[in-house]
């Protein structure tokens, strides 16, 4: 595609020019007063802001700029994507959290395993239609041990009949489609081998989406119940039983830019926090010292993420080892820092505030940010799973 005339994308060939163009474009494009609107309006306002922001990004060709041009993207280089994300962080833009699966996980899966028909339909749906996707992987009994999942899909003619329950589907209540893992063969020797991968339209009869309330009062996660849900056989991705393998592609799709954005936002929040606390908690030398101890850790994760991005520049499918270290470094750091801020701010941080959604995990409400930090230490491979991987796969320590 060619970029719309007034899009920063027109300047993407030159990183400095691209950065300048983004700095001009972003203040106009970011939904006005979005923080205040969401605080006041709750979930509906949050969805509105997400849609509005996605529309702005999509109109400028930026939403899918990282896709191959063959599929309507702009083949945006990784370096240009880095510039894009660092400018998003700098401009304090809303994070397009509702669209992450649609923009990264679904297309990566499609590029690798989708049929031409699937690609045509679903990629276009996202690019021009703003269709929202979520993941249906985890189950109540299958968290860290994902391969033990029990949701069944039985082939009946040209359909699969699905029964079971998914959980922790981020944004499920606002999604149109779901990337679904279900067991098609219960007799396979390896539990991984009986799993298949489906595209599931969430408007299909028999599906119930139930938001899970979080301790901070929002409902970002959902349970999805499947009661004799019919999925057309053409919605199978890859072959039957290939689901586990395909899911690895989905899960390792995006190991650099999203965390880069979060880390950049933390680095900027750190400077903002220093300014905000200078007359109160930062005036206490003991608290100021503890505050200072976080600086090298933040610089450490920034340097690690820079290295990860450099590895991905050389090999877009690489970086697995570094991504694992990054995740285990980042989650605990974010948690320690937000807990530190919560304590440093004293009673002020104990006062309830309506959470500021899609401002990242450094929204400025220390208590909310602390609670949400568990999203990084539990979800997407808990700290404990990361430690197993590092010690056994990377360091060669024997299995227990």
């Amino acid at each position, binding site marked *: 595609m060619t970029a719309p005339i007034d899009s920063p994308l027109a300047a993407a060939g030159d990183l400095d020019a691209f950065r300048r163009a983004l700095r001009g474009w972003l203040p106009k494009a970011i939904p006005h007063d979005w923080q205040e609107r969401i605080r006041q309006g709750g979930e509906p306002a949050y969805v509105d802001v997400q849609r509005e922001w996605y529309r702005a990004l999509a109109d400028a060709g930026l939403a899918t700029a990282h896709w191959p041009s063959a599929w309507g993207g702009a083949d945006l280089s990784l370096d240009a994507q880095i510039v894009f994300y660092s400018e998003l962080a700098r401009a304090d833009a809303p994070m397009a959290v509702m669209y992450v699966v649609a923009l990264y996980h679904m297309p990566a899966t499609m590029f690798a395993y989708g049929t031409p028909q699937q690609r045509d339909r679903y990629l276009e749906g996202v690019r021009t239609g703003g269709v929202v996707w979520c993941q249906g992987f*985890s189950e109540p*009994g*299958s*968290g*860290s*041990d994902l391969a*033990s999942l029990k949701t069944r899909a039985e082939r009946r003619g040209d359909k699969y009949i699905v029964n079971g329950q998914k*959980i*922790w589907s981020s944004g499920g209540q606002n999604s149109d489609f779901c990337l679904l893992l279900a067991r098609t063969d219960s007799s396979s020797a390896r539990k991984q081998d009986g799993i298949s991968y489906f595209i599931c339209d969430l408007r299909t009869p028999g599906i119930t989406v139930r938001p*899970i*309330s*979080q*301790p901070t*009062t929002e409902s970002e*996660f959902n349970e999805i119940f499947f009661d004799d849900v019919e999925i057309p056989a053409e919605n199978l991705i890859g072959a039957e039983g290939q689901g586990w393998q395909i899911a690895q592609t989905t899960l390792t799709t995006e190991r650099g830019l999203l965390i880069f954005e979060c880390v950049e936002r933390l680095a900027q929040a750190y400077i903002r926090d220093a300014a905000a606390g200078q007359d109160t908690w930062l005036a*206490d030398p*003991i608290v100021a010292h503890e505050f200072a101890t976080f600086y090298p850790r933040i610089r450490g994760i920034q340097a690690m993420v820079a290295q990860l991005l450099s590895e991905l520049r050389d090999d877009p499918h690489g970086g697995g080892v570094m991504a694992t270290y990054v995740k285990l470094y980042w989650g605990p750091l974010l*948690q320690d820092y937000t*807990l530190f801020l*919560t*304590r440093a701010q*004293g*009673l002020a941080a*104990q*006062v*309830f505030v309506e959470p500021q959604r899609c401002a990242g995990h450094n929204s400025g409400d220390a*208590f909310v940010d602390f*609670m949400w930090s*568990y*999203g990084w*230490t*539990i*979800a997407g491979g*808990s*700290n*404990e799973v990361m*430690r197993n991987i590092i010690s056994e796969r990377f360091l060669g320590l024997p299995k*227990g």
Partner: protein
Amino acid sequence: MDETIDLGALRDSIRDVLNAECPRELIVKHAQHNDGMDRELWSKAVELGWTMLTIPEDHGGLGLGIEALAVLHEELGRAAAPLPFLSSLLAAKAISDSADAAICEAWLPRLAAGAVASLSLPMPLGSTKLSVNCVGDSLVLTGAVLNLLDGADAEILVLLAKDEHGELVRVVLDVTADGIQPARTTLWDRGRSLANLGLDGLHIPAERAWPATGAQETALANHAAIALAADSVGGQAAVLDMTIDYLKTRQQFGRPIGSFQALKHRVADHRTRFEGDIWLLRSAVSAVAGDMDHRATEASAAKALATANYVGLGRDAIQLHGGIGFTAEYPIHVFVKRALLNEQLLGNQAAHLTRAVSRIVEGAA
């Protein structure tokens, strides 16, 4: 009377009532839909005489001491009960320590009968922005009072003010009769709330005031520290139980996750630290009950230790629970919020540590 009460029996009876009347489902619902105390639960507690526990027998109470107070708070903490005992019993102690028979007679029976009360208790002790001036037979109060615990739910307030000579004075107010309205601050810990109050020339009768001596303020701070240490010990017991149960039942990779050594060792460390909290609390209670020299040191040390370990346990307990720990429907967050508040309430970690070591550090200088 302290000698005759069976603290074990008292503990059992409080625990049985709270197990029945304040189960985990209640605190979860409360956290989602309410703000501040649970009035129905409070009525039951009043019926059972819990508000009478530490009020002198002459004024309608049972005259029990700090040992009973610690038991009560430990059990309230175990249930994470949304009840304003901390503020109410401290206010009662402030009034009863006034040693002014008329004041005691006027207010303590109301408290024993279940009136919710709050008090200002700054840390470090003695700072206040409320001034009190004598005008004829009246006292005139002007200034701001911040962060009154459970202040928006209270009928009676015991405030600290400074008079024209710079002396500290305690005054007691009746929210309804005095026509005042503390403004509620909603907390993440929904079982409690704070309130701010601005007074601009409120007249009260002079007999509602008494001198706030250093000894009395110190004793109040010691009781507050014991109560919060006890709440944090009880809360940790509950979180440990909950977490250990979960680890025994939750299955992953074909085995209970409690069989994974890395998780086991973390729990063992929490449980071991908890043991120090328990016995230091008991030691601090004895010191305060025995009116020993080092009671401020001991009470503040117990508060600092138990609240910090409660936060440390709580934050890891969410992680040990995995996803379920991060839902509003599972009770762990109620305890974690309480832990974080306990650490800040009525003197933060640094304030209590300073208080705890002051004898040693000043002794060294």
